[in-house]
């Protein structure tokens, strides 16, 4: 039986990157073929590929011009053909586990929580349930090292960004911006509506893995109380 081989649209990102764009259409999580292809390119360690960046419906490969002597569309196609010829492509993500992240939704940490329940016209318990029942997909990392853009937030608790960003949002703060939710990996300015805080470190420049997440991961938030937050707290910057 012949299985359906994936095809992607190939685009140029200037003279040193190529982009594979999924044809899957409506975005519901990340296209499984694109995820499998990302895994393939990562495992192959292709000489001259400097970065492999998966985001929503695209996979971008940053390359060293000196390592490729053909037209970039040609070598982009060659890599895709190698993937299609390999046995390990489809269903690579079948056994993916869900990463559970403890979050304390106490108003002392979720500094926009009061505003959020007013705006979404629900109780704190309802908001917590809506936010933590859902399994989110990490669509990409960016903005800050380790900052994961996850979706999709249920319609009822989607909140707009603050019109102007706060100058300081603490590391571990969990926020909502429209359909997306995310965790600030380090203390920084930020405009998302903060509804809670995780006690665990999301980005650690001294660890070998650096971050907890990568694009394509599945995440679920687990509500914890304030006492548990303080017991587990790994952040150095708490007053």
């Amino acid at each position, binding site marked *: 039986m012949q299985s359906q081989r994936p095809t992607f649209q190939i685009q140029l990102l200037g*003279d040193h990157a190529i982009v594979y764009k999924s044809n899957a259409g409506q975005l519901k999580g990340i296209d499984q073929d694109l995820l499998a292809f990302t895994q393939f390119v990562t495992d192959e360690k292709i000489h001259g590929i400097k*970065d492999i960046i998966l*985001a929503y419906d695209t996979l971008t490969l*940053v390359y060293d011009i000196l390592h490729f002597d053909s037209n970039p569309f040609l070598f982009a196609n060659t890599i895709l053909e190698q993937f299609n010829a390999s046995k390990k492509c489809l269903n690579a993500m079948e056994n993916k586990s869900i990463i559970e992240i403890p979050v304390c939704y106490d108003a002392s940490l979720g500094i926009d929580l009061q505003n959020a329940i007013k705006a979404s016209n629900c109780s704190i318990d309802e908001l917590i349930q809506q936010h933590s029942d859902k399994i989110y997909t990490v669509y990409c990392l*960016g903005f800050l090292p380790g900052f994961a853009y996850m979706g999709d937030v249920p319609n009822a608790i989607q909140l707009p960004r603050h019109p102007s960003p706060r100058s300081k949002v603490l590391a571990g703060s969990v926020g909502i911006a429209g359909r997306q939710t995310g965790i600030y990996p380090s203390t920084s300015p930020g405009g998302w509506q903060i509804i809670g805080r995780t006690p665990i470190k999301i980005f650690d420049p001294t660890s070998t893995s650096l971050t907890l997440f990568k694009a394509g991961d599945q995440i679920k938030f687990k509500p914890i109380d304030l006492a548990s937050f303080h017991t587990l707290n790994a952040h150095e910057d708490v007053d």
Partner: protein
Amino acid sequence: MKMSIRIIKKGISDRIIDAGRYGFQHLGIQPSGPMDFLSAQLANTILDNDLNQPVFELHFPASIFEFEETMLICICGANFVPVINDKSITLNTPIQVNPKDQLSFLQPIEGRSCYLGFKGKLDESKKWLNSFSSFQTTLNKGDHFVIHKVAEIDISINPFKQHTIQQVQKNVFNEHEIRFIPGPAWNDLAPASIQLLMQEPFRIDAKSNRMGFLFNGPAIHLSAPKDYLSSAVTMGTLQLLPNGQIIVLMADHQTIGGYANLGQIILVDLPRLAQLNNQCPFKLSIINVQTAHQLYRSIQSWFKH
């Protein structure tokens, strides 16, 4: 034997850079390479270093450096009128400094990014994720850089280096054309905006920095408002902001972007853009990827012995 360089006075935004930190952009960690890779590589070429050895990248007003031992340095890129103990020194040439010598910079004459190379190997303790590039930090007063001495052969300006200097200077400072390859949102532009983009001169806005250069010029618009899913961006990506202004992402760009991606400035022209002063007008033009690759390959011959 160890040598060292100390920062005596903090500059506005100085750092150490090498070719950049690649392989981590999928985690949101940007490469943080040089703004002008040609001038950075030129400093290393003149000192017979490996091309991508770390160098200091300086912006005006720049830091003041003190050298604790005798060593060789070389300054390339922007001309900020470098002086050692108030005595002016020449760009693009190896300079011997002596213990307690202080290097400072008097005024910005031409260019935006100045490179200070040194003979020797920077101590590995400054390395993180395969790169010496400063990550979201700048040089501070009191910072101290340990440099391990390497064998010095005769480091002088031979005809080969003379040629390299001329080629880099010409490419970076004597031309004003900025070429790009159209990107995925190019066809979403209003036809009148495409005309403006290709005909009108632009200038670099004063609010520009290592993250991005904002362009001053005519307002540019899409045919119709459109939302884009975020995708990877790199140094040189031309993004259209909702207010009609163009921003080109530079060395400290974020790893992904969600604004309309109009195109990508080619690698060879990035040093030129990086060194353009705010008052200097420039025009954009389109180039194809094959030609961009040929131009990039031809540059390699300037640096290979």
